[in-house]
């Protein structure tokens, strides 16, 4: 079967449209910084509600959804499509079909996401968490995702390699799911389902964005970069397939766990909890594969920044995916739902796992795209440690805040709400500090990438 190895990855870099991938990455950097900075600024408002004055565009609610749109769609989705434009040719041994489309889609996506984000600040959002962009932006988004999906499918149909490696499974499925799910969550649900049904389907949509778009694209990167960087074949192809099918089977139905104890039918809630629990299966198969693939190569953690990020991301993946299922349980939800615990969990997945893996891939791909060595390994190291330190502070603060507030609110009825706000205020301060360290890390990364492209040593000279 298709075990990734030297042979199954095309060694010819010219199959990749380097310029296109580079441009997609550059655009993702912009939203990495803008999205994270918006989050950092918003977090200050928890301790200083008058911060940034009384400007509607900079008010808490609008900035908060701008943050989410910026990091989930502006940063991660852009970077993931860029990665697909790199990984798919490498694994199929053929160029992406319709090369001009890659550029056209980028320009369309720049217009779509930028206008979408501005709309949020201007007060035009459709009231759907993780699907805030207004309807006309949603239609454009579906067009971008849809065309990219068709492009990838046709490229795979034209492939030179016989085998279809697991990363391609994840990328094709992820793109397909993203299109379907975006239509369901943004074009159908808000306008055709009311109230409780709407909330239920919203939970479905919201978690599918994470589980059937961000997760498969991130996992595709892990499965591609880890063997290629360590030069070890993937430990088990069968396990990788188990993980893929486990994800496809259990993930879509877990959404109702966002609204436990609500008027949504109890059996729907129960199925969602059970499925959430079953997700441990695909996750552990990915992790087993990851650890197996690292066999004999653990020392690379000290010398390769890419491996550092991949391994740290995998550690966070284990935590997220143990946390996720257990926090879906009713007894746990009673306390931690509606609190910062869940916010910490969301950041653990999107930042701690998938953003870290994306960075790992970028550290590996960027020199190939630019023909230059990474400008500074020292800065890359700063990036890593700032991210780890900042995120550890932030995550621990959020989880602690969640337990404190959840306990105060749900174990006694006579604690005034405002007392819980005062109680977790110091944790919010910690969260801001951690968050700004993370932003500093990301800024160092973007600077390093920019300098690499500009003044990094040419790889030929080095060799």
């Amino acid at each position, binding site marked *: 079967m298709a075990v990734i190895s030297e042979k199954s990855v095309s060694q010819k870099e010219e199959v990749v449209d380097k310029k296109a991938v580079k441009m997609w990455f550059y655009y993702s950097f912009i939203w990495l910084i803008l999205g994270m900075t918006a989050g950092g600024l918003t977090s200050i408002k928890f301790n200083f509600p008058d911060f940034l004055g009384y400007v509607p565009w900079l008010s808490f609610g609008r900035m908060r959804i701008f943050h989410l749109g910026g990091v989930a769609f502006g940063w991660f989705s852009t970077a993931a499509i860029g990665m697909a434009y790199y990984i798919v040719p490498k694994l199929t041994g053929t160029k992406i079909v319709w090369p001009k489309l890659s550029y056209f889609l980028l320009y369309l996506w720049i217009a779509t996401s930028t206008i979408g984000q501005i709309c949020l600040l201007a007060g035009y959002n459709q009231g759907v968490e993780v699907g805030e962009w207004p309807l006309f932006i949603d239609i454009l988004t579906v067009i971008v995702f849809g065309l990219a999906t068709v492009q990838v499918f046709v490229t795979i149909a034209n492939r030179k390699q016989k085998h279809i490696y697991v990363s391609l499974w994840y990328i094709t499925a992820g793109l397909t799911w993203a299109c379907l799910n975006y239509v369901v969550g943004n074009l159908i649900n808000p306008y055709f*389902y009311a109230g409780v049904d709407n909330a239920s389907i919203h939970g*479905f949509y919201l978690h599918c964005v994470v589980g059937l778009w961000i997760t498969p694209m991130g996992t595709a990167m892990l499965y591609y970069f880890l063997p290629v960087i360590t030069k070890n074949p993937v430990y088990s192809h069968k396990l990788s397939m188990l993980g893929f099918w486990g994800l496809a089977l259990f993930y879509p139905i877990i959404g109702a766990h966002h609204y436990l104890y609500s008027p949504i039918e109890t059996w729907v809630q129960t199925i969602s909890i059970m499925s959430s629990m079953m997700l441990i299966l695909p996750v552990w198969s990915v992790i087993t594969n990851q650890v197996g693939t690292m066999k004999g190569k653990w020392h690379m953690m000290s010398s390769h920044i890419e491996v550092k990020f991949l391994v740290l991301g995998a550690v966070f993946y284990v935590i997220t995916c143990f946390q996720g299922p257990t926090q879906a349980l009713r007894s746990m939800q009673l306390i931690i739902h509606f609190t910062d615990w869940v916010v910490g969990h969301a950041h653990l997945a999107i930042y701690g796992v998938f953003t870290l893996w994306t960075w790992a891939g970028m550290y590996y791909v960027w020199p190939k795209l630019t023909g230059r060595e990474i400008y500074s390994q020292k800065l890359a190291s700063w990036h890593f440690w700032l991210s780890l330190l900042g995120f550890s502070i932030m995550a621990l603060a959020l989880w602690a805040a969640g337990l404190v507030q959840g306990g105060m609110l749900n174990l006694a009825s006579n604690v005034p709400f*405002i007392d819980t706000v005062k109680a977790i205020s110091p944790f919010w301060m910690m969260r801001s500090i951690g968050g700004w360290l993370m932003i500093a890390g990301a800024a160092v990364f973007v600077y390093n990438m920019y300098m690499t492209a500009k003044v990094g040593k040419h790889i030929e000279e080095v060799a």
Partner: protein
Amino acid sequence: MITTSFKGAMLGAGFGLYIASFIVGYAYPAMTAKNDVPKVKDIHGNIVEVRPYTELEKRGREIYIKEACWICHSQFVRSAGMDEKRYGPVSQAGEFAYDYPATFGTRRIGPDLAREGGKRTDGWQYGHLANPQAMTQGSIMPKYVWYFEKDSNGEPDITKPTEDGKALIAYLQRLGTSIGDFRNPEGNKKASSVSVASAPKFTPEMVNSGKAIYEANCAGCHGINGNGAGPAAAALNPPPRNFIKADYKYGSSDVDLFKTITNGVKGTAMPAWDSLTESQRWEVIAYIRTFEKK
């Protein structure tokens, strides 16, 4: 060409499992559960019709969505934990039948608003919207000053909310009221349940702790100096009591004040302060007494 098994698999995984999950877990219950029937069980146990939003309430809901209020305020009372004691009767499906999209929310940075309607007067809500910190010391809610006309000093005039501001408060006052007035199920007939014979003797310590409670909870309306002219006072009709003049409406003994604080005053912005313990209420009274002109 793509191998048949891969095509089949992509069809199965990409479309099949996703759509099957959607149908089984979400579309099928949506079709069968009749969650979209606008009927609820009211506080007396009768099935009653939920009326559609008025034009004003609809506009208010748009503002609620526009400002992403739903990011910080959830809108359903869970059937577990302390939700019912804290916010009111558990939410029913019919109450949300007109909500496109639902604004259930997933985080309570502020309190749940599912039963907010009728909890406070419009005036209180305006005062709070313009300056939440004045009403609740330590609140982190933004000041939504752009929903008010500006007065001559350029400050928001809480007696002059904009049309959008009025709409937003109309929407808030509608929330959770379809089941009837659960805060006052017997109408006004029920007599006060407060039975205290006499006030404790006030000590300087009580005055001290009363001051902190007063400034956190009462100063927004009654003023930091007790003159009845706190930041929200202008929007309140009838106006908040002036403790310096001490011309009380429902009796001026300490026990009378205790009853007023405990029950609130119907038809005014004065809520029932059952969130304060009895000794805290006495401490506040001890402090309020220090305002009076000797």
